[in-house]
């Protein structure tokens, strides 16, 4: 963000720097958001690959904890970029005038959607600390599922702000569709969602005596979807 601001100060953002500043920050926001959505599917894919090629490392979900740890910073940076983006809009585009902002909000659908997206992401950013996570307990997860509808809204915002015939939003739309579609497929196949299971498995692992078996079997099963016993076909809590 500092680099972007510096480029703005130095007039290195082309002929219409206001537009460029808003556009670039918006692009970083959506990219970070997509990145955060890609983490879980990426983990699944990597586990599958590692098992296929017979690597010892990487078959277990816990081998990818470092990857999962990237999710929070990515999500947060999506929010921070969106805040920067909205701030640039407010300061440079409507020059801090509330009346003008309201007029613009009324006139431009894509803007209202952008603002809605931003305020949807806000509580997620605020509850991203460990303390908040503890405090919210079981409600944290449902709350953070807000990111799914928000990513759809973000894509809508981007597509509506683009002119007709401008495919600007398509790659983002494709990525979001793929990543959310993956989750839907997994959920449909397992009945209750591989993703939740992962979380529960991790929790189980922490407390249950059959922890070793749990992760090993589950992982092996994930990596061989055709095998009976895979959670996609059968939902069991502790294998």
């Amino acid at each position: 963000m500092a680099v972007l601001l510096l480029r703005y100060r130095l007039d290195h953002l082309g002929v219409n720097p206001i537009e460029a500043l808003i556009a670039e920050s918006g692009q970083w926001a959506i990219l970070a958001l997509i990145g955060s959505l890609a983490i879980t599917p990426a983990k699944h894919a990597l586990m599958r690959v590692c098992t296929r090629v017979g690597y010892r490392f990487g078959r277990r979900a816990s081998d990818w904890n470092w990857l999962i740890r990237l999710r929070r910073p990515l999500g947060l940076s999506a929010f921070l970029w969106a805040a920067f983006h909205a701030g640039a809009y407010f300061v440079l585009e409507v020059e801090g005038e509330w009346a003008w902002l309201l007029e613009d909000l009324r006139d431009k659908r894509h803007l209202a959607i952008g603002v809605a997206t931003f305020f949807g992401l806000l509580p997620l950013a605020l509850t991203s600390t460990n303390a908040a996570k503890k405090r919210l307990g079981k409600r944290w997860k449902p709350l953070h599922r807000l990111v799914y509808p928000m990513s759809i809204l973000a894509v809508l915002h981007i597509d509506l702000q683009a002119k007709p015939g401008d495919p600007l939003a398509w790659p983002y739309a494709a990525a979001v569709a793929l990543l959310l579609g993956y989750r839907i497929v997994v959920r449909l196949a397992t009945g209750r969602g591989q993703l939740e299971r992962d979380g529960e498995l991790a929790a189980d692992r922490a407390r249950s005596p059959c922890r070793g078996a749990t992760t090993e079997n589950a992982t092996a099963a994930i990596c061989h979807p055709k095998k009976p016993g895979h959670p996609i076909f059968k939902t069991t809590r502790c294998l």
Partner: protein
Amino acid sequence: MLICHPPAIAASEITPEAVYLARRRVLFGAAATAVAAWLPKPSWAAALPGLLPGDRLNTWREITTYNNFYEFSPDKEAVATLAGELPLHPWTVKISGEVEHEFEIGVDDLIRRFAQQERIFRLRCVEGWSMVVPWLGASLAPLLALARPTSRARYVRFVALLDRKHMIGQRRDSLPWPYTEALTIAEAMHPYTTLVTGLYGKPLPPQNGAPVRLVVPWKYGFKSIKSIVAIDLVETRPATTWNLVAPDDYGFFANVDPSRALARGSHSRETRIGESRKRRTEPFNGYGDAVTGLYQGMDEADRL
């Protein structure tokens, strides 16, 4: 004034902007008189307009690196590079339809026949930005007069080049190609309606619509069609490109109107390229005095 064509000008011949600006002040007055003599003088005809207070010419770089030209790309900053390979020679414009005398004219011929003059106009894009551009061109009216429009000619339709090989944006159906625009015959005959072949005293760069484009300064920029190959006089209102795609935002008339909020938002303000603060958008882009006569007696709703 330098009017040659590519492969064109040695760097040493290019007038530096500063010198150019000084020279321009002299030329402009003379040019305005010249065009006034050329034209039949309808009651609303006015001398060529000046600048609004605070208007400053945009630089060559600003004008030639930030171009809406979907034939190449929706990315305004990519257009200058992509348009570089467009072959501009030979190039003819065909005038046909409801006229007594159909003809085709080469661009070189056009430039020779119709004294090219400096014309400084503001250009206001529907996207909410504007520039002040020193075009080089001549009113469209005498060219149309040469074709002797019949009494059935009520609209003038302009068609741009279709060339999928060089205009790579046309390989996608982002818009229905070729790009088409139109004016009423009265609008087309207005002295401000200009066929442009140059910029800053030099040949028009491809990204700005070479070799010949239209400039209708009181309308949103998309009406000012680029790289024209045909001008057609017709009886009924023709379909026009952006109007087909998104009629709520791209009206047929599309006169700059800060009071009208279109589907993509209001047009009350604009970013003047090169300035960091917004400006208020002027009705008819500041050319109201000269053009409102065209719309007298017309219903508000009818002239979106």
